[in-house]
Structure formats: structure tokens, C-alpha cells
């Protein structure tokens, strides 16, 4: 456990922003909070509340909730007194591990997503992913001797990814991996899932106008307000994969309670013999998928958006397009390696295309 930090408030003279008369007759002002220490990325919360103290309370609540998920879903670190996904992996083939209901809920949600995507979101893919992870981190730390995983070893590890070898005992709250070689990796789903649960918690606590981003997994809550105090949708941009471009965003979407998640090749990668290898591994080829530069998904549930963005990233366009059109309330944007884009049939209603 990290020691608690108390931060001293610093008051600097500033011009009070013009108050925004909200529809409810309240005046709500806009605030934002950011923190760095969860999910190894930047989290940002924007919101409209009556005053700063109220907003600060909500951001603390979000932090605390995300911190719990961050520990439970971690596959690399142990935390005192916490049985997390790493604990389950460490006990593969050894014994069932008693876990928090939040982990059981995530596993059950992952199972649903696995079915929805014909096995393209398999959290039992950990043994293959960890080999890529080891080579990627070694290659980033020592680029001159960066290497690719041995294909035969990838294939051997791919024999230990059967989700049916994960035995869940709901009554006893335990998870047991029957195959000693298998391991869970919830990287494709955990952030979005945690953001969704956190958003629901904040809403229940009365946070009505906000948006949460954990490393670009964005979930909006209600609307924001314009200068006149009128409710309007949140503006959420889709990152341009061409990071050198003047245009930071490809499209700006107008969302009121929906989520937007992007999977892409451009932030986590390493270089071997001059070629870049990113972090999203295609379960068919066991290599980084090469269909797109990025895939963005819009839907209500941020966990579903996160899972789908990875799944669709790993499918040829036609297959992914079929899947998206089949799902209610889900839209997608594909960015191809030549920077051209395609989007699903209902995508335009979210933005000014």
C-alpha cells in the first residue's frame, strides 16, 4: 500500500470564472482533475459542480475506486492483503484463489465479450502476451539487441489459452486455472471496465455532468454546459494516429453518456531491425495485427468499448464491420495503414462528418 499523501492547498489569486446558470437553477462551474499513478497512464476527470469542494469530493471518489480496480486487475505487481489477477496466475495448477467479487464480475463480463466477438477477446491469452511483453520491454530498454519472440515458442504457448481451463466457483468466490501453464491478461478490457464501474459509482453519488478518461478510455456522464448555461454534449476527440500532424484529432464526437475507446499502434511499440512491433497481438497469427493504425469504438458501456476496440483491431475490415453492424448501439471508426478511414453506418450521427 502506498502511504497516503496529504497535499497542501495553494491559493493563488485568480479570476473567478463566470458562473454558469444551469437548467436546474443551480450555478455549476467547470473543473478538472488529473492524476498519474493508476493503470500506468494519465487519468483525467472533467466535470461541472456547484463548487470546487464538491468536485474535489467526486475526483477523490473516482481515484479511490480506480485504485481498487488497478490493484485487483494488476498482473505484474503484488499488493499487501490483496488477491489479484497476478495471484490467480501465480497459483495456476496449484490451487484455487479466493478473490473479491469485483474480479468475478470482470471475469464473467470477459466471458460475455468473448462470446460476442467469437473468441477475439480471450483473457486466457496471457502466456502468449507475456512473451511479447518480455521481448518488448527488453527491446525498449536495449534497442540494439531487441529481438522478436521465437515463433515456435509462441505456438507452444498458444496451446495454453483455453478459457474453459479457468474454473470459477461462485459460491466459494474462488478462481482456479487448471492448466499450470496458462495465465490471465485482462489488459484489453480492464481499463474500460474499471472506468465504467467508476462512472456508475459517481453517477449514483450524484455526479451528473462529467467525463472520465483513463489513458484515453473516455466515458461521459450526462452533458456539459455552454457559456449560456445550456446543456450540450461533451466533445470527445479521436486521436490522429499521425502524431506528427498539426491536426491532433481526426473527428470530434458529441457524446452524452456514451463511451469512446481507441486501440492503436502508435503509443506502445518497440523496434526490431528498423521495423515497429506494437502491443496488440492477433490471436490468429500470434503477431501484432497489421490491418489498421487504429480502431475506435463508441457505445454506452466503456468496458464493452475497450474489449471491442481490441477485438475489431484484430479482424479484417469486412469481418469487423459485420460484427459492429450486428451489435445494437455500437459504432466504429477504422484508420487504415495509409491513413484512409472508414466508419460504421451510424457513426455520422455522433459527429459533424
Amino acid at each position, binding site marked *: 500500500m502506498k502511504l497516503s499523501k496529504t497535499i497542501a492547498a495553494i491559493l493563488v489569486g485568480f479570476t473567478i470564472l463566470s458562473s454558469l446558470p444551469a437548467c436546474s437553477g443551480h450555478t455549476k462551474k467547470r473543473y478538472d482533475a488529473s492524476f498519474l499513478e493508476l493503470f500506468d497512464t494519465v487519468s483525467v476527470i472533467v466535470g461541472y459542480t456547484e463548487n470546487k469542494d464538491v468536485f474535489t469530493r467526486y475526483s477523490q471518489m473516482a481515484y479511490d475506486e480506480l485504485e481498487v480496480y488497478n490493484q485487483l486487475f494488476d498482473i505484474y505487481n503484488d499488493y499487501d492483503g490483496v488477491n489479484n489477477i497476478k495471484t490467480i496466475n501465480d497459483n495456476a495448477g496449484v490451487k484455487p484463489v479466493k478473490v473479491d467479487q469485483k474480479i468475478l464480475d470482470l471475469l464473467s463480463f470477459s466471458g460475455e465479450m468473448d462470446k460476442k466477438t467469437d473468441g477475439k477477446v480471450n483473457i486466457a491469452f496471457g502466456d502468449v502476451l507475456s512473451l511479447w511483453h518480455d521481448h518488448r520491454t527488453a527491446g525498449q*530498454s536495449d534497442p540494439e539487441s531487441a529481438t522478436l519472440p521465437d515463433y515456435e515458442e509462441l505456438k507452444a504457448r498458444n496451446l495454453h489459452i483455453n478459457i474453459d481451463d479457468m474454473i470459477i466457483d461462485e459460491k466459494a468466490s474462488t478462481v482456479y486455472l487448471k492448466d499450470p501453464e496458462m495465465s490471465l491478461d485482462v489488459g484489453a478490457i480492464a481499463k474500460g471496465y474499471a472506468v465504467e464501474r467508476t462512472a456508475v459509482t459517481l453517477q449514483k453519488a450524484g455526479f451528473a455532468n462529467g467525463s472520465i478518461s483513463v489513458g484515453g478510455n473516455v466515458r461521459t456522464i450526462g452533458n456539459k454546459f455552454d457559456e449560456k448555461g445550456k446543456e450540450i454534449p461533451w466533445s470527445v476527440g479521436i486521436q490522429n494516429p499521425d502524431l506528427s500532424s498539426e491536426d491532433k*484529432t481526426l473527428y470530434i464526437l458529441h457524446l452524452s453518456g456514451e463511451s469512446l475507446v*481507441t486501440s492503436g499502434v502508435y503509443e506502445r511499440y518497440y523496434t526490431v531491425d528498423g521495423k515497429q512491433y506494437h502491443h496488440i497481438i492477433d490471436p490468429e497469427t500470434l503477431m501484432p495485427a497489421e490491418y489498421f493504425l487504429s480502431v475506435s469504438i463508441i457505445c454506452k458501456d466503456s468496458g464493452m468499448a475497450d474489449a471491442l476496440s481490441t477485438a475489431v483491431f484484430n479482424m479484417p475490415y469486412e469481418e469487423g464491420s459485420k460484427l459492429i453492424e450486428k451489435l445494437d448501439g455500437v459504432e466504429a471508426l477504422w484508420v487504415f495503414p495509409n491513413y484512409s478511414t472508414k466508419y460504421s453506418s451510424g457513426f455520422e450521427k455522433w459527429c459533424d462528418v
Partner: protein
Amino acid sequence: MKKIAALLICSTLTLGTLTACGGGNASSKPETSNAKSETSESAEPESSTSEPASDAAKTGLSVSTSISNSAPAGAEDGLAQIDSTAAAVLVDANGKILDCKIDSAQTKINFSAEGKLITDASTTFKSKQELGSEYGLGKSSSIGKEWNEQADAFAEYTIGKTVDEIKGIAVNDEGVPTEEDLTSSVTIHIGDFVSAVEKAVANAKDLGAKGTDTIGLGIDTQMSSSKDATAEEKGLAQAYSMYSVVTTDADSKITSCYVDASQGDVNFDTTGKITSDLKAAVETKQELGNAYGMKKASSIGKEWYEEADAFSAYVTGKTAAEVGGISVDSEGLAADADLISSVTVHVSPFISVVEKAAANAK
């Protein structure tokens, strides 16, 4: 549990991306005298501050690494010794040093005559500034001063001077200074200090600092990539150090930040013999990353230093406490996107070293 403190500043953060520019802070800064240190030895010429103190200043960091003190295993265990000297400077438009910090990471990793690591790979190392009196130079120094005290005295001495003036410091045959200002406080030879400061000034960039800001330097060192030698592969003793320089204003807010890293690699074989060239120069990741057109540029990729620079941009405008905690701002309406959906960026490796640097910006 963390408590959040709210910070009431109009900020212009571009949300959700790591490209925040924290330059827009309230300019109603109280005039501070910005006392640099408690020592009374600094002989700052009165005439050196003819420019207004709020002028923009450049922030510079230099790292020089040597592995030449390493020794193969024989009757005694082998030693991989990686010495990295780091200097952080704040420089005005005329090349005059306004603030300076010096530190050094001396990493000693032992290996056996069979090419096995003796030092545990999970070891982390303190810098000489962090070691303070633990380093033990005080016992052998004729003036009874520790390495960190001597480095601080030298850093103090450079304030108000240009590089040319510093290079003009009179030293004896041993490289030990003979100028009166320094003889009472420095007995170690200063060649490394002079070249570190010179290189830091040459590297200095306009990153948003002001002349009245204070500079801080942090170093984190570990050796987790080190491994034993095998019949097929050389052993590796690697000191992986991360460095951060930050400048902070009177409100303890970070006004500029720069992060770099060095990997001092010493290879050895199964007989405990060292196979690395001990005279080879060790470049930092920023140096390698910027070396376009060189053979290494294609293999190093741009990813590391781009992430480091993005992280530095993110923390600029925040206090040290906010880097490790939650920062809350009240803000105007977003110009375009409230948030951006992007692919996640790693931040963990950078947090602790920047917090360290901000904590010692005094």
C-alpha cells in the same frame, strides 16, 4: 488514501493528452529573494544581475558516464563500476549560470570468476547526494567535507559565472582548485564537475523556466536487466539510471522539466573476464534518440525520449505533490475537444525521478 488539495489557478491544460502546456500560470508572483543556500561562501558578484530577474532562462542537464573503473574477477570478485556525473543548470540569456546542482551515481556491481552476478539484481542504488555522509569521503578529506558538500560548494561557486569563467578556475597538478573561494570547500579534483557544467550549459534549452526559479536534480538507479554469463551469452552488469531536472517557482510549481536516462553496460564472460571496451563513451537515451542519421538512431527509435518529453510537458505547471497525487483545477471551456480518446501512454517510470527532482529544488 490520498487527500486532494484543490489548486485555484486558471490553467490551460489540453485535457486527456500528454501535451499539456503549463506555461499559463498566474503572473502575480511575489518577489522572492530566492536564497539559494545557507552557506555564506558564495561570492556572487553584485554586478552580475543587471537583467530583470523575471527574464526567461534555459534549463540544462548533462550526464557523463564512464565504466573505466571496472575490474575483472581474479583473486577478488569482479567489479562493474559505472560512474555517472550529472549537472543541472539554469542559464540566463548571456550564458551566466543562475542556479546549479551536481550529483553522481556510482554503481558497483560484483560478479564472480564463474561469470555469475553476486550483487542481487533487484538492488537499487542511492546517488552520492542521497548517500550524504554514508559515502564516506568526509573521513579522508583534508577539510572533513563529504562528496555532496564539496559538489554543492562547487555548484554554488558557479552561480553568477559563465562557462569560460568556470573553466578558468586555477587548479594544481592534481586538478584540485587553488582559488581562495574554493580551497576551503573543495578538495576533490573538479575536472568532472567543470565538464559536466559546461555540457549542461551547452545542452540548455528554453523549456519555460524563469531566471528567478530554483533548480532540482533527481537520479534513480537500478540494475534489474543485469544477468549471469552463460556458455552462449555474455553476462551483463547494467546500471540503469534515470535523471530528471526540474525548475520550480516561488509557489513550488514546476516551470520546466527534462528527463534522461543512461545505461552503463559492462559485459563479462563465464571466466569473469570483462569483454566490454572500458574506454567506450556511454551516451544517454536523449543523446541517442536525437542522433538522427547515425547507425543507432534506427534501432533506438524515437519512442523513449518522445515519451519522456511528453511526460515532462504534462508535469510542467504542477507542484511536486500534484505529480504524485491529484491535481484539481478550475478551468475555462475547452477550446476544442474536452478529452481525446487515444492509446495509453506509460508514465510509471518517470514519476518517481521527477518527484525526487522537484523535492530537492530548493
